[in-house]
């Protein structure tokens, strides 16, 4: 294998970014309502040249206020989940690890349900009520992250196997509580929750939340990227990495916390979108190899591409009825995953 040079890294990322751009443009064009990109482009140029003041209302409302924010949200969520997946797979040295394996999404779901129940009791203004579910989800995710972290400690050190087992037990325990609480929810709250659990991008989020997500992603993914070389060495085994001078404890903590934050942020706005965090890193590894300096940015871009495609399908396949994007990623992801698995074995 040729060594990874900065030029090659940038070239490959540029290629993925170009694919993402094309996918986004196509996603902007497709939807329940037909819009002409030519018309939109012409309108945009007119606005930029100050020939007119505003886009014609259909383009403005549908493309810029509904479609674009949804696509942007998908990009951040997809990138977060994939980077988290790649990190957990390296951290736990387990190819089946995904962002949800350590209970983050279950914790987030529980937090969201509790928030919904509390919201029903309080009389909140709609703007605040809209933020309470993501907020509750994030708190739930954060608490779970902390609990699972302490479950994973052995003799004061994080142990990968113990962490994994602690996570799995936490998931089943939290799922039981979620099922119990779900029976107490009624009507629209229950149905909203069912949508949320499947993973859904259809609700426009406030712009401030979107900025917050972007910043959170850049910080957490950046933190993970600083450990990329160490993660490569960790693949050889923890002892080996330690002998090669890797501060394994520090890497574990940084990666664990940053990846959990990425998952918590994504889950809190979109629910549990399955398979992206598991599948995209594997696909990227097959294409680009397992050097994490390449794998992490590639996973970010690949995850964004995957979610934008899946969500575009979710928006269009049964239009005008929206499908939850989680159903789409699972439907496409499971067979693809099996195919890749068989091919690699063969």
């Amino acid at each position, binding site marked *: 294998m040729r060594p990874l040079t900065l030029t090659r890294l940038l070239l490959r990322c540029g290629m993925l970014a170009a694919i993402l751009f094309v996918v986004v443009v196509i996603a902007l064009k497709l939807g329940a309502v037909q819009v002409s990109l030519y018309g939109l482009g012409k309108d945009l140029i007119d606005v930029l040249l100050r020939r007119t003041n505003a886009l014609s209302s259909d383009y403005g409302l549908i493309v810029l206020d509904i479609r674009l924010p949804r696509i942007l949200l998908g990009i951040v969520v997809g990138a977060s989940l994939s980077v988290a997946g790649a990190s957990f797979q390296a951290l736990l040295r387990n190819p089946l690890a995904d962002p949800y394996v350590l209970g983050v999404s279950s914790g987030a779901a529980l937090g969201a349900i509790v928030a919904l129940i509390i919201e029903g009791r309080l009389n909140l203004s709609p703007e605040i*009520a809209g933020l309470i579910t993501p907020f509750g989800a994030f708190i739930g995710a954060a608490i779970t992250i902390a609990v699972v972290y302490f479950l994973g400690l052995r003799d004061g050190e994080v142990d990968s196997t113990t962490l994994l087992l602690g996570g799995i037990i936490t998931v089943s325990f939290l799922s039981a509580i979620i099922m119990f609480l779900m029976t107490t929810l009624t009507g629209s709250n229950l149905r909203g929750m069912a949508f949320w659990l499947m993973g859904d991008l259809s609700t426009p989020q406030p712009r401030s939340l979107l900025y917050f997500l972007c910043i959170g992603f850049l910080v957490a993914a950046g933190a993970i990227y600083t450990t990329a070389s160490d993660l490569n060495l960790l693949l050889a085994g923890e002892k080996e990495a330690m002998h090669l001078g890797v501060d394994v404890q520090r890497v574990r903590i940084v990666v664990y916390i940053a990846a959990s934050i990425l998952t918590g942020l994504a889950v809190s706005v979109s629910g549990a979108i399955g398979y992206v965090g598991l599948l995209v890193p594997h696909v990227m590894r097959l294409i680009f190899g397992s050097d994490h300096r390449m794998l992490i940015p590639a996973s970010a871009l690949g995850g964004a591409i995957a979610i934008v495609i899946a969500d575009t399908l979710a928006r269009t396949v049964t239009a005008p*009825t929206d499908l939850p994007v989680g159903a789409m990623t699972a439907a496409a992801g499971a067979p693809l995953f099996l195919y890749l698995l068989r091919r690699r074995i063969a």
Partner: protein
Amino acid sequence: MMHDVIDEFGRTVRLPLVPARIVSLAPSLTETIYALGAQDRLVGDTDYCDYPPEAKKKAKVGGVMNPNLEEIAALHPDLVLVTKEGNRPDTVRALDTLGIPAYATDARTVDEVLSNTQKLAEILGVPEAGSSLTADLRGRLEALHGKLQDVPPTRVFFVVWTEPLQSVGKDTFVADALRKADAASIIDVKQDWPLISLEEVARLQPEYLVFAASHFDIGARDFDALAERPGWRILDAVRNRRFAVVSDAVIRPTPRIVSAIEDLARQLHPSAFPELPAPEKPAPSPVKPSTGPAPNPAHISQSVLPSTQEIACAR
């Protein structure tokens, strides 16, 4: 001209005095719009808006739970109607974000169904249609009450689904509709759509099982099939074939619910209606929905239709 109204979410919404382009996100609201004669201004509704049949021809914006925001926006509505019960709060928030005025209704009793109809009539700018419709419906409910006041209520179990077995809680408009038909639901819980064990139903032994036509596709033959299922024969009502099927209007908070109430009352208390032996059916036996082509009532404000016809339509 605009005015501010407060909806059932407690939101203050600025609406035109006479909305010209209405999108309905619930079958019950679509029905009510037709009942008020405002259907010409209804520019879009959901995949599930099936009554009256013309409502199926309106532009569709997707499901009740997952309407497509783009389709809604493309219709340029000046009023989107939602229900607190059926639609997601997220949908309302999304519409708020997009600056599309949304008004939410919520009915937990039959009286609220009627007062909401009146309120909706005012919002649609047709208050007179609302008052004449609701006055008529109130009159019918009072007449029914007069007939039934000396009749002891029948203890019933309302079946929403059989698998899992689901009924209605006491705070729903369905339970209230049962009460208006002089039927008492044996299920006395606060949850709106509780799951109930067959054992519990057997313990309480209702006199009648009540089914809504659309949710439970039941005729006499289907009822026999149900009786064959394990455990069901434990119910006296099943052994004695005591069951009633009412139009799906009973589970829709619309003006048509009054007809469903009258129909149910007739099935449960035939002796209270000596002067009106229901046509085409021997009084106490369950309604067998006709299989012929459904008559096509022009719209619901002529809802003084014979109940059997309505069942046929609902199916």
